[in-house]
């Protein structure tokens, strides 16, 4: 038995251990702490990449905790009783997103988070959030889904309210925390309903049992409510701009990944667990919420004057694109036409693209705040004179987000437009309109923050090379995925989308056996 079977659990365990050992390391020496941090980060990213390669080449990987063999999923009575991690292509794809954003955030934070402002504890919480997020994406068990959901809740809200010496940050954290706890409790209630009915917590087993009866539907409603809230669908999105706007830049991009983890949870529930009993109405609901999210968030972005909050509304609108695409896929799941598959591929691809370009923009906003001492667009200006790289990265991210070819946002949006057109042209019209508005919003932001004559802004500090390195990682992804979208789609996106579209049987077989 080679060590590679243990990769799924190492992916979660290493950042978890790293989080709790970090304060101890800091007691010894600051250098040791930074070394430990980089070591844990590099090891986690390496594990995730290994895991992804294994899953994309060898199919679903199952890891049963506490069993003699990793693939001994069934107990003596032919019934999955143990906790297990089930990694299919979609999980691996999401873990790659977490690796990208977590890695970039870690590099950026090394130069961004100031010593003496709780760097040690902030990085501990970051590792905890990372571990929780990865657990959410890899688990094959409903109750651990809830536990990891709550780990991300506590870690994320701790990070949002971290700057307790400012008045806005605890406010954002309180609001987000109330919403997250409620979402978590809805999920727990759904877990209880499902357990009461089937006496099991394993997702694959539940999936094989669910017929779509009244209690199943109640559980589905609770899950949809909790996960749509955490994904930030309008009108349950209002915590999102508060949280993204007030958190540190390195936190904000991990929050984006966390939001996408909730979206992954939603996909896992509706496609895999309820795949056999899904009705088009749920698909239409998700589609409608997606369209509403796109439109409302973009309109709100138009009038924002704070750079962080403006980008935050941009991030919410992108979630709308993913919901729209997934909704199109879900509404057509019964007949499985080709455009439903393309829509799902577009949505899944857009998750990665959104992670890269929104992450880039949020990191740039952090750099702007650092360099100018403020994020208010009314007093910013002329930063391009001094911060050449940051302005370049911001422009790149903004163009990619608005879907300007040949950057990565265009490829996935094109897939979403063309496939949602087949379901209803109105959806496409809304999405295109939103993209145009988004371009206007970000051109304004760019002009306001970077162009114009130099201004003497007080409280500005230089941007460190580590911050630029963090941004560069994401910028490379934005350009690379834009230039070779076909390769990315063929080797990563298509397997991930197919895992949702047709992979339910494979998922069930991997856990429950032939």
């Amino acid at each position, binding site marked *: 038995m080679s060590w590679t079977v243990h990769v799924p659990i190492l992916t979660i365990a290493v950042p978890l251990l790293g989080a709790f050992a970090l304060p101890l390391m800091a007691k010894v020496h600051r250098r040791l702490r930074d070394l430990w941090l980089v070591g844990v980060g590099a090891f986690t990213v390496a594990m995730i990449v290994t895991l992804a390669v294994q899953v994309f080449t060898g199919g679903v990987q199952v890891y049963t905790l506490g069993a003699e063999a990793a693939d001994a999923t069934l107990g003596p009575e032919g019934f999955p009783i143990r906790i297990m991690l089930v990694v299919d292509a979609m999980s691996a794809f999401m873990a790659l997103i977490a690796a990208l954003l977590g890695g970039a955030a870690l590099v950026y934070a090394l130069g961004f988070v100031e010593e003496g402002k709780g760097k040690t504890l902030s990085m501990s919480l970051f590792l905890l959030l990372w571990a929780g997020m990865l657990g959410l994406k890899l688990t094959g068990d409903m109750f651990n889904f809830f*536990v990891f959901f709550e780990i991300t809740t*506590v870690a994320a*809200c701790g990070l949002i309210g971290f700057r307790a010496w400012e008045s806005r940050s605890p406010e954002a954290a309180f609001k987000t925390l109330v919403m997250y706890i409620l979402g978590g409790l809805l999920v727990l209630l759904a877990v209880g309903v499902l357990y009461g009915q089937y006496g099991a917590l394993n997702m694959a087993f539940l999936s094989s049992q669910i017929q779509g009866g009244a209690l199943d539907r109640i559980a589905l409603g609770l899950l949809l409510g909790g996960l749509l809230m955490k994904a930030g669908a309008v009108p349950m999105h209002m915590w999102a701009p508060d949280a993204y706007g*007030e958190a540190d830049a390195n936190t904000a991009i991990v929050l984006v990944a966390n939001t996408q983890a909730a979206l992954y949870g939603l996909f896992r529930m509706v496609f895999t667990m309820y795949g056999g009993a899904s009705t088009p109405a749920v698909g239409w609901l998700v589609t409608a919420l997606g369209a509403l999210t796109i439109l409302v968030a973009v309109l709100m972005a138009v*009038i924002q004057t704070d750079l962080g909050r403006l980008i935050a509304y941009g991030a919410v609108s992108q979630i709308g694109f993913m919901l729209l695409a997934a909704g199109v896929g879900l509404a057509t799941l019964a007949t499985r036409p080709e455009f439903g598959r393309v829509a799902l591929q577009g949505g899944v691809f857009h998750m990665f693209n959104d992670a890269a370009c929104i992450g880039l923009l949020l990191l740039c906003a952090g750099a702007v705040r650092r360099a100018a001492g403020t994020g208010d667009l009314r007093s910013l200006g002329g930063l391009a004179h001094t911060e050449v790289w940051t302005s370049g990265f911001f422009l790149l991210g903004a163009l990619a987000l608005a879907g300007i070819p040949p950057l990565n946002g265009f490829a996935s949006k094109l897939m979403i437009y063309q496939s949602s057109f087949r379901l209803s042209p109105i959806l496409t019209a809304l999405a295109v309109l939103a993209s145009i508005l988004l371009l206007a919003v970000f051109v304004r932001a760019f002009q306001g923050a970077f162009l114009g004559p130099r201004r003497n802004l007080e409280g500005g500090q230089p941007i460190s090379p580590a911050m630029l390195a963090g941004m560069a990682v994401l910028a490379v992804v934005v350009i690379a995925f834009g230039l070779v979208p076909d390769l990315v789609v063929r080797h990563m996106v298509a397997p991930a989308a197919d895992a949702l579209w047709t992979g339910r049987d494979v998922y069930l077989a991997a856990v429950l056996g032939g």
Partner: protein
Amino acid sequence: MIGNLPFVVSMVLVVLGLWTLMTRRNLIKLAVGIVLIENGVNLFLVSLGYVRGGIAPIYTFAPADAPMVMPTPQALTLTSIVIGMATTALLLTFAVVIHRHRGTLDAGKIRELRG
């Protein structure tokens, strides 16, 4: 009918908690509302695993053929209580910090972030 009473009570607790969250504006009362929902959900989980006349799932002197209540929901509930304690502590901490900054606990006045 009497067997369903715990479920009814747990749902009443959840609804009461939601009602608190929607009608009260004091941050501490919001925390209380959340704890109410939490307890409702916990009660729901525990009562799921109850077997009529069952004994505790871990009991050394249990007779060989005695029915036992299901242990899994109890484990879930314990985990959920611990998690609930952590989130409630965090919630109250933020309420204290907000009070220090603003001098108020009225949610209607704590709206620097809006629009």
